[in-house]
């Protein structure tokens, strides 16, 4: 076995996740091209990718860094509106669709990273629930600001207005229109593009976790004081994680926004932040694979439950509570473990009985 590098268990697991994701992508693409999937599902493909990015980026903050964030949708909002704004300006310069989208996504990511850096500063002083409140407050502030933000574009250039709509020339157009949000977006996002962004984010996160930086971050999560005492720079790593996580959420926001012709600021409110947090917790803290699966299933679940239209959110709530009770209560968990153990022992007994028969 000389010269052959053996993979560690984590790397192997990571490759399985990425491979599985790729496989699902190919299958869905074939189904889509073959016209087997319904329009309902086709319309959900880009949002699912966006929510998957949201889930893995929030998992980086909550699962790997260990800080609860209740305002992740705020970064998505910054990315969505910032990205659309820059993307629309780019349209004036270039006709290339893919270039526009690429610039928009990068701009969305950078703007959201700046916001993440800003919101990361209070993190240095606050802990636990107090920090959670600051992130919640931040999400609300972003929503309120976008709600009163007007950006118009005409021959004279950009016009920005707060609360009051700025006057623009007749042939100009409003890019961000207050409470109506961004209007007249060209639908540039495609499933493939969203998937590529998702894959890139996943690769970045996996590499980050396995690097020296990642180990430092996880040391901070497990015991801040011990980590500090061996010389890990708390400020640096916390800000870094907040900025990376925000950047990814921003990119998800841009991808998401470019899937619709209009996007309202209320799309990225407190409920969206909570929804993404639910993906992360249900999928398992720190497990990217879990986040991906939970995000996909839970985005699809309400769509699939459409037949029970009135009851679907009620069912969703009950499922959520039951899953949390089932996975976190020691008694219920033991109960399930016992059942699984019994089934296993039955199989094992059968096997041994068979072997005995064969021998005898």
């Amino acid at each position: 076995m000389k010269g052959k590098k053996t993979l560690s268990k984590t790397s192997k697991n990571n490759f399985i996740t990425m491979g599985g994701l790729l496989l699902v992508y190919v299958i869905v693409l074939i189904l889509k091209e073959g016209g087997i999937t319904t329009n309902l599902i086709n319309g959900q493909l880009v949002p699912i990718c966006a929510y998957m990015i949201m889930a893995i980026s929030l998992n980086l903050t909550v699962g790997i860094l260990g800080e609860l964030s209740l305002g992740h949708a705020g970064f998505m909002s910054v990315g969505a509106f910032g990205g659309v704004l820059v993307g629309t300006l780019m349209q004036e310069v270039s006709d290339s669709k893919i270039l526009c989208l690429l610039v928009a996504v990068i701009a969305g990511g950078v703007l959201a990273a700046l916001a993440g850096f800003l919101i990361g500063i209070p993190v240095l002083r606050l802990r636990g629930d107090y920090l959670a409140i600051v992130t919640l407050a931040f999400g609300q502030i972003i929503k309120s600001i976008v709600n009163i933000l007007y950006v118009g574009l005409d021959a004279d250039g950009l016009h920005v207005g707060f609360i009051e709509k700025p006057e623009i020339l007749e042939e100009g157009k409003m890019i961000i229109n207050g409470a109506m949000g961004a209007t007249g977006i060209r639908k540039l996002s495609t499933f493939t593009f969203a998937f590529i962004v998702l894959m890139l984010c996943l690769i970045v996160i996996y590499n980050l976790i396995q690097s020296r930086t990642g180990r430092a971050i996880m040391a901070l999560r497990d015991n801040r004081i011990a980590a500090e005492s061996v010389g890990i720079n708390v400020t640096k790593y916390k800000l870094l994680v907040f900025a990376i996580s925000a950047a990814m959420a921003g990119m998800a926001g841009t991808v998401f926004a470019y899937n619709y012709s209009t996007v309202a600021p209320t799309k990225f409110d407190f409920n969206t932040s909570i929804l993404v947090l639910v993906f992360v917790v249900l999928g398992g803290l720190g497990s990217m694979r879990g986040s991906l699966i939970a995000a996909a299933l839970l985005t699809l679940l309400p769509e699939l439950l459409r037949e029970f239209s009135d009851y679907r959110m009620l069912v969703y709530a009950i499922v959520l509570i039951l899953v949390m009770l089932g996975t976190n209560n020691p008694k219920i968990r033991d109960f399930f473990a016992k059942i699984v153990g019994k089934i296993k022992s039955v199989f094992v007994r059968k096997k041994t009985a068979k072997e005995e028969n064969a021998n005898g």
Partner: protein
Amino acid sequence: MEFLSNVINGISLGSIYAIIALGYTMVYGIAKMLNFAHGDVIMVGAYVCFFMTSRYNMPAVVGILLSMFVCTVLGIVIERLAYKPLRQATSLAVLITAIGMSYFLQNGAQLLWTSNPKVFKSVVGDGGVQLTEGLYVSHVTLVTIAVCVIIMIALTVFTGKSKMGKAMRACSEDKGAAQLMGINVNTTISITFAIGSALAAIAGVLLCSAYPNLVPTTGSMPGIKAFTAAVFGGIGSIPGALIGGILLGIIEIFAKAYISTEISDAIVFAVLIVVLLVKPTGLLGKKISEKV
């Protein structure tokens, strides 16, 4: 005069926040959990009172008492079914369960009572008092402030003097030690939830008397703001909830009056962030030093 009337309105709105914040802060103090479903208990309380007074034409007092009763039972049931099994679980698991509970209540209300807005009839009637020239204060405003003061005094006496109140304080300091002293921790937590939920019912009735638009999501935004108020004053502290709530109410009304209605929320939350940066555990919060 306009300034004074804004102050009074701010105190009134703040009183509602303070009453809701009490529910958050008491539950947090004792169970160390953020009860996100609290805002929706407010909504349930308001609906019960609405149906009693508007549909069945009962007197307001009966409506309020009944809605307090329903919410108290609801609070205890929620605690027993959803939170008690998770006493040993991580705080995040409890948080998500609470969020699930909040979804459940909101969607249950939507099924039962539809999402059509109901016009809540104020429990103290319309009208108001002309205090001086140019200073008109509605009855609802005055009653809200009075109710808040009464609740505050009653709670302070209750937690300070009564046996149950002492048990609550003991549980919030150290559950294990409290149990060794013969305090029934489960009962104490249930009673905390019961008191918090009864207060939520009162807050719901007052809130809808002042802002008479009742929908299944009525409770969520005031819930978030009251929660912010609790953190503002230092979560776990009863006087902190009062101060936090009233300051938040005054800031909100002033931002609405002098700056802009649309951005008032942003200003409230921005002030919160600044306060937390200066005092990381809220205005009256205790500083906890970590042990290695």
